[in-house]
């Protein structure tokens, strides 16, 4: 596991959406291979990465998640043939938009993790947690309407 530099002991809360066929299985493989990653990553199982509505991502941030990562099958390997291609476009546009609003880009991530890539799953999560930890707590999305000073 990577060393994580914490900001005054800050531990981020990470929501990971994993598709049932590849990435969830990849996470299982990380488990059965005992490849550790931080406990603050919590996985929500979805049938396909294309089930992930941008509203879920926004909801997570609003409720205090510090980072949201979506994992799906590699392009071309989607169990539902095309699902991850849609995910790729949707998330590309969403992430760029959030960046435009001033939300740190390292809080969002899309990764392709196959069922065989337990090691990659673990590496990706370690890296993601490290990056989000470095950013500190997510405050922006939950107080976008609050005026400065209030």
């Amino acid at each position, binding site marked *: 596991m990577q060393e994580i530099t914490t900001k005054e002991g800050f531990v981020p*809360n990470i*929501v990971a959406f994993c598709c*049932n*066929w590849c990435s*969830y*299985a990849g*996470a*299982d493989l*990380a*488990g*059965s291979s*005992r*490849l*550790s*990653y931080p*406990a*603050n990553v*919590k*996985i*929500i*199982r*979805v*049938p*396909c990465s*294309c*089930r*992930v*509505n*941008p*509203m*879920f991502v926004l*909801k*997570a941030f609003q*409720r*205090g*998640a510090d980072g949201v990562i979506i994992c799906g*099958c590699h392009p*071309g*390997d989607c*169990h*539902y*043939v*095309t*699902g991850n291609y*849609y995910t790729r476009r*949707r998330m590309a546009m969403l992430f760029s938009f959030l960046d435009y609003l001033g939300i740190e880009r390292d809080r969002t991530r899309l990764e392709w993790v196959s069922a065989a890539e337990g090691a990659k799953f*673990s590496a990706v999560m370690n890296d993601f947690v490290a990056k989000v930890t470095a950013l500190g707590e997510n405050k922006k999305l939950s107080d976008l309407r609050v005026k400065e000073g209030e």
Partner: protein
Amino acid sequence: MQRIGVFICWCGSNIAATVDVERVADAVKKDQGVVYSATYQYMCSENGQQLIKNAIKEHSLTGIVVGSCSPRMHEATFRKTAEAAGLNSYMVEIANIREHCSWIHKDREEATEKAIILVRTAIAKVNLNAPLSAGESPVIKRALVIGGGIAGIQAALDIAEAGFEVDIVEKNATIGGRMAQIDKTFPTLDCSACILTPKMVDCAQNEKIDILSYSEVEEVKGFVGNFSVKIKRKARFVDEKKCTGCKLCMEKCPSKKGLDEFNMKLNKRPAIYIPFAQAIPNVAVIDPEQCIKLKTGKCGLCQKVCGAGAIDYTQKDEYIERGYGAIVVATGFKPIELNAFNEFGYSENQDVITSLELERIMNAAGPTNGVLLRPSDGEHPKVITFIQCVGSRDTSGCGKPYCSKICCMYTAKHAMLIREKYPDTEVHVFYIDVRTPGKNYDEFFRRAVEQYGVDYIKGMVGKVYNENGKLMVQGSNLIDNEQVLIESDLVVLAAAIEPEPSVRKIATLLTASIDTNNFLTESHAKLRPVESPTAGVYLAGVCQGPKDIPETVSQASACAAKVIGLLVKDKLKTNPCVASANETMCNGCSQCASVCPYGAITYVEKELRVDGKTELRRIASVNPAVCQGCGACTVTCPSGAMDLKGFSSKQIMSEVEEICKR
């Protein structure tokens, strides 16, 4: 209000050693809807399941959460348990506290805290679960086998044996596949044709089996139990029913420039031909690229000599559509192209050949009638060098990263057969490793060395070049730490094998997963090795991964067993976790249909009563038997009318909220 039971599994020490299971069970006791919580050593055991069943009955549970291993492991188990206790199986949610928790975290406190959150997340979801019932769909009691090699033949025979009808779709003019091209088989050295052709004949004679040769799958619609497949029957310009296989046309055909594909293009064949003597169906086919009549309109000799009147130059491709309950993919393999391996001089030197070409040269029905003669000058080669792993285990980008698995054994076979038939021939084999797992395999290889004196050289060849009419093979001998130069007459390359390229199209049509090497992916590498992740699609032979004949036949029979198990059912339960549109919210905008990979969404005009008024509206309608439940439509839907059962937006939102609660 749900009445939820929570069951935390210890999984022996797998979970309990890292997660304080009692604390988890205790922590969620007062959560919304929870009326019962317990732990047990092995929840999946008979006793564990009994504990769940009893609790469901005693506490009138309406939903359960099992904190255990991955749902990919035991979700089905616990669903059955719930069902047995009278609870709808979709009222079960699994919190994965093993693979996603106890196995990856060392700190007990941290792991326990996480386990509590994971269990709470599942509780939050189950609070919103609704009983789902699987629909039923009928099963068409007919199977399709794509590919007529040994894998397809074996699967078809086994399925037909059980009394079901089977169609074999074969893209070539005859069934038989690669095995028909092989001379002898390892490790027994029996004649390949002698064991294969009787099976081919069985197929032809079995009234349950319909061989659609010279045909290709064009379109696949439907789903498990209910596939509708469009098959292209390519024009062979010979009436299959009339042709008697007399071969008179072959003798008279004036165009003899076509390359004989069956003999690996080592010799020529006429434009009208039967691929080989034992072809099934034993019917001629015209190669439109070579046929003078089809190209210029002149000739027509074959039609004149055909006593049966079978020749029909006007034949066009035809399409048939048939329904199937199950599909077996057995599309096989081909050796890779060797363009990227010019260091072995394959393209410049006629006497550098592939193993499959040698197979034809060694075969009595081959271009040299089974006499080992080299292609360039028809002389007996006195020194033969084999090079193994040509393009296999290659991660440089030129070849394939995997081991082709069969080359070590067939090279040993070739070396042995040559030494047996021509004892004055010197045989060298360059190898990186000799891999011979399998019954009697290593013994076979050792026989080549010990009994037949084949010279095995540990090392790889760096260059093959022609000098003064000899093939100079320059390579390493790693055992002696030398660079050796072997003056050879014939060089045989064990070219890597790759899935037959048409498999990509088939995979797309079937929506079956394919890996980066174009091998079809099995549903589970260990426990479901013959099933594709797409329900109703099964995999046999090399299309799924490199394998030899015995393994292929085993897999084909396993496929057949799976197919039979499916076809004996009259109805299938369908996945109830499908999309459905809320009629009052649907705009009818068609965006959902545009992302559905299955064409499951259609639109209907429907009269709706909203706010006391009747309105005619255009509304999305999902066919639950066709929908596979990916959810692409749910995100595309701007109004949120489209939702996915079992993974509803509200359920996922509640999971998000629970995780974020900290």
